[in-house]
Each structure stands twice: as structure tokens, then as C-alpha cells.
């Protein structure tokens, strides 16, 4: 089989969001169901059409069983590999594989969480690694702080560089009607916010919100008969080099260097071909690391790259046009929201934050403590 056999073989045909920000009085499954209903309506499909289920969360031990039962699905294929917040981008690859192989026709990728108004905090069933737990590491923020500190030491990155990532996210959020935090902010505000783990303040950290997202994928052939402009899957790859942050070979280089290269290879594209990027910005340092590792700037130059507003509205490389996990929504596992926003941009439906003539979008997810890295590239009909 040819290596490029997945390229363009499936497409996103429906997306839905629910409960972005605060959704008091509602369970994670209720939010997930609302996002699913919206995505199916967006696609012009029915719940009974769904025969592939791709889902994960941080509260159900058997995510596909719980969600499948709740929605009344009897999927022919179900997938819940837990790569943390990167999982949902991985599911776009797995759903494309399943559709291509004829294992399912309509794939539902979905997630819901009431982290803000329900549990109060991000809850997780993740175990504490046995060779790290004795040192009371405050995960996940402490792991990202270690990476940020090393990047600053090795490449001269500054706290101001990190803060500019948070400010750019907020500027995008101001253009996004459903974003949770939309009030203006400044580099000074980010720097003077409460320090969590040096060098990261609370404003270098993602939000804790409620929220749900759903994405429907079908074959490229079927996509052309549905009501939305198809958003084609062009390439995707997952990579992992460690689980525990202390086992990461180099704190300044993530496995995005591998996932990105393989995804670009499948798509037959290069970083300069990408019009808009959606990155999992759990912490400001993530954006710098991923811009470097995915090939948008040389290693170590991430801080200088964002210094002149390059990733903010009006900049040369639009990143996280919905405001990202830093300012739009972050209910614990952000990956699904990168694809919802990428689809909005490629359909030309993103309103005030629309990137003109966006044809190719890159989504990148991260999970654990810089552990799992998943890249997917999507495009319009023109990009096929």
C-alpha cells in the first residue's frame, strides 16, 4: 500500500461545541451529548448514522463504553487510547484509518468535561510516577516549568517571550464570541500574576473551564454530498518518547519534531504551506516548543519568533485563532478544540477572526508532561 493512502481519504463534515466556559448544573456526558447533537446537525447526519466512536476523558475508566451507552450507540469500532489531551487529534488519524479500511462510515470524535463547575478542578486518574512522586512535583505545571527554565537557560528565552504567547492568545479570544476570557491583558499583567512554579505564573497556564467538542468524519466521497464544505484529512502522526518528564531526553525538544515531520510527509506539505495553526497551549512554553519542533522557526528561536506579534491577530503566522487553552477553553483535554477551530477556519466561517483564504490548517496536540505529541494537517478541496 502506498504511504500516502490516507491523504485526503476522509474529511471533517460536522463540528459542535457546548458549555464553553461555565455550564453549571450539567454533567460531562450532557455537555458531550449537546456538542455531538450540534456536530451531527452541522453535518446533516443523525445519531443513528454514527458507527464509529472515538472518545476519552479523565473520569470514566471505560470511556467508549460509558459514552456509547449514554448516546445509545452500538459502534462497529470504538477507540479510546489515552494520549492525554492529544488523544482527539490521534483519533482523527485513527478514524481516517477506520473509514479507509471500511470499518465504519460515520466516525464521532467527542469529549465533554465539567471541570470548572463540577469537580472544581482538573481531576485525573493518572497515577503518580514512582520515581518522581517522592519529590512532590506539582503536575502538570511543574514539569512545564522545568522545560521553560531549561529553554531560557539554553536559548536566552525570556519570561517576556512567554508572556507574549499569553497576550496573543487573549487578543485572539477578543475576536472569538464564545471564548471564556476576553478582557484585554498585557505582558506586564502576565509577569506580575501569581507565580505558580518559576518561571510560570498563573497567566502562563491554561484555563480551567467546562466545555465539550465533537467532530464528525466520513469518507471523502460521502463528504462531497453533505451540506458543509469538507475539511479533508491530509496527514497525521503520533509520536512518544517518554511518559515521565524526568525521562525526557532533552527538555527543549519534544516528540513533535517527529510527529510533525511524519504528518508533513504524509500530507506532502511543508511548514511554509500552512495558513493557520492550532496548538495545544496548556502552558505558554508549549507554543514556543511546538513552533520550533514543527519547523515554523529554528530550535531555540521560538521566543524571538513571537516577540514581534507574529502569532497574534495580524501577524505573519496565525496561532490559536480561538484564543486557545490559555484564553478560550480548557476543560482538561484540549485536543478536540484544535480541530473544531481548524474546521471553522477552513470553511471560512470564523467571523472576525477568519484568516483570509485559509486552505491548510495544522492541529497539534500534547499529552501528559510533554509526553505524547500528535500532529494532523487538514485542508480544503483546493489543498487536495
Amino acid at each position, binding site marked *: 500500500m502506498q504511504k500516502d493512502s490516507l491523504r485526503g481519504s476522509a474529511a471533517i463534515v460536522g463540528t459542535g461545541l457546548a458549555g464553553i466556559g461555565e455550564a453549571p448544573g450539567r454533567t460531562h456526558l450532557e455537555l458531550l451529548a449537546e456538542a455531538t447533537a450540534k456536530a451531527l446537525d452541522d453535518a446533516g447526519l443523525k445519531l443513528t448514522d454514527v458507527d464509529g466512536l472515538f472518545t476519552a476523558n479523565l473520569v470514566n475508566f471505560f470511556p467508549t463504553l460509558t459514552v456509547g451507552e449514554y448516546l445509545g450507540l452500538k459502534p462497529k469500532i470504538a477507540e479510546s487510547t489515552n494520549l492525554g489531551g492529544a488523544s482527539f487529534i490521534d483519533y482523527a488519524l485513527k478514524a481516517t484509518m477506520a473509514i479507509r479500511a471500511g470499518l465504519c462510515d460515520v466516525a464521532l470524535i467527542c469529549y465533554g468535561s465539567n471541570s470548572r463547575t463540577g469537580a472544581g478542578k482538573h481531576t485525573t486518574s493518572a497515577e503518580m510516577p514512582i520515581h518522581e512522586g517522592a519529590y*512532590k512535583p*506539582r503536575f502538570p505545571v511543574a514539569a512545564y*516549568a*522545568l522545560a521553560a*527554565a531549561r529553554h531560557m537557560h539554553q536559548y536566552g528565552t525570556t519570561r517576556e517571550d512567554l508572556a507574549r504567547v499569553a497576550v496573543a492568545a487573549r487578543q485572539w479570544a477578543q475576536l472569538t464570541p464564545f471564548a471564556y476570557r476576553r478582557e484585554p491583558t498585557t505582558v506586564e499583567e502576565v509577569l506580575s500574576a501569581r507565580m505558580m512554579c518559576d*518561571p510560570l505564573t498563573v497567566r502562563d497556564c491554561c484555563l480551567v473551564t467546562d466545555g465539550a467538542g465533537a467532530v464528525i468524519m466520513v469518507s471523502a466521497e460521502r463528504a462531497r454530498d453533505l451540506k458543509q464544505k469538507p475539511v479533508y484529512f491530509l496527514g497525521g502522526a503520533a509520536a512518544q518518547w517518554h511518559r515521565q518528564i*524526568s525521562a525526557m531526553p532533552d*527538555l527543549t525538544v519534544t516528540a513533535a519534531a517527529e510527529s510533525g515531520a511524519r504528518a508533513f510527509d504524509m500530507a506532502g506539505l511543508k511548514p511554509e504551506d500552512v495558513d493557520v495553526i492550532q496548538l495545544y497551549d496548556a502552558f505558554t512554553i508549549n507554543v514556543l516548543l511546538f513552533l520550533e519542533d514543527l519547523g515554523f522557526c529554528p530550535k531555540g528561536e521560538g521566543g524571538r519568533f513571537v516577540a514581534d506579534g507574529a502569532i497574534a491577530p495580524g501577524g505573519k503566522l496565525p496561532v490559536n485563532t480561538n484564543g486557545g487553552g490559555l484564553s478560550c477553553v480548557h476543560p482538561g483535554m484540549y485536543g478536540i478544540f484544535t480541530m473544531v477551530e481548524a474546521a471553522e477556519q477552513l470553511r471560512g466561517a470564523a467571523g472576525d477572526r477568519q484568516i483570509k483564504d485559509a486552505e491548510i490548517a495544522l492541529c497539534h496536540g500534547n499529552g501528559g508532561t510533554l509526553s505524547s505529541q500528535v500532529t494532523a494537517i487538514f485542508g480544503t478541496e483546493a489543498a487536495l
Partner: protein
Amino acid sequence: MSTYDAKQFSGDGPEKVFRSGLEAGKILIQSCASCSSHIFYPRALCPVCGSSDLTCIEASGKGEVYSTTTIRQAPDKGGDYNLSMVTLAEGPRLMTQVTGIDPSEVRIGMKVAGIIRKAGEQLAIFFEPA
């Protein structure tokens, strides 16, 4: 020649051997007879080459701070404390706390020396400025 060594799969496993080492005041790492890599944390197979021919050796305890952060915590909950990653002289890197100085004084590149201390119920490897 196969690198499979059945000895590794009988008796105490590498994790228990490591814990017993701490009880005896030793910081044990593993050395791979096949590819000469030094390994931490203790494993049944070499993560570099897959060999099971791993031997415990005592580390010097000397190391250098690879990265560091101060975890901010209210004074009534115990106050700020350090979290670091230290690269041992033998090569492997581990998570730890650098203690014996104020957390704000810990620097990347600082030379440190290992010390075995209780952390809760278990023994763990901490470091102090060398």
C-alpha cells in the same frame, strides 16, 4: 549472540534491588553489558538496546542541575520548595529536590551531591550543593 539473560528474570527484580540499595545507603544505577549505557530508573530491559544483561553499579552521587523550578506554596502549608532534574556524573538523569539552600538559590549547572533521605514512608535521593 542473544543478549537475553534469564538471571534478570529470577529473584528480586531491578526495582526491589534499587530500593534495597537505598536501604544500604547506596545509589544504584544499571550498566548495560551489551551497549554500555548507564540507566536510571531501574528496568528489566535496557531501554537503549533491549538487552537484559544489566548490572547494578553504585553511582558516585555526583551530579549537575539540568533544570530547576521553585514550587510556590503558602507558608502555612510548608512554604516554597525546590524541584529539579539532576544529571548524574555517570549520565542518567533523575527528578529530585536540591535541599540545604534556599530554593531561589538553585541554579542550572550547579554541582550537587546525592544524599539518601526519607520522603514520607520511602527513601529517596535528594541533592545538596557539592
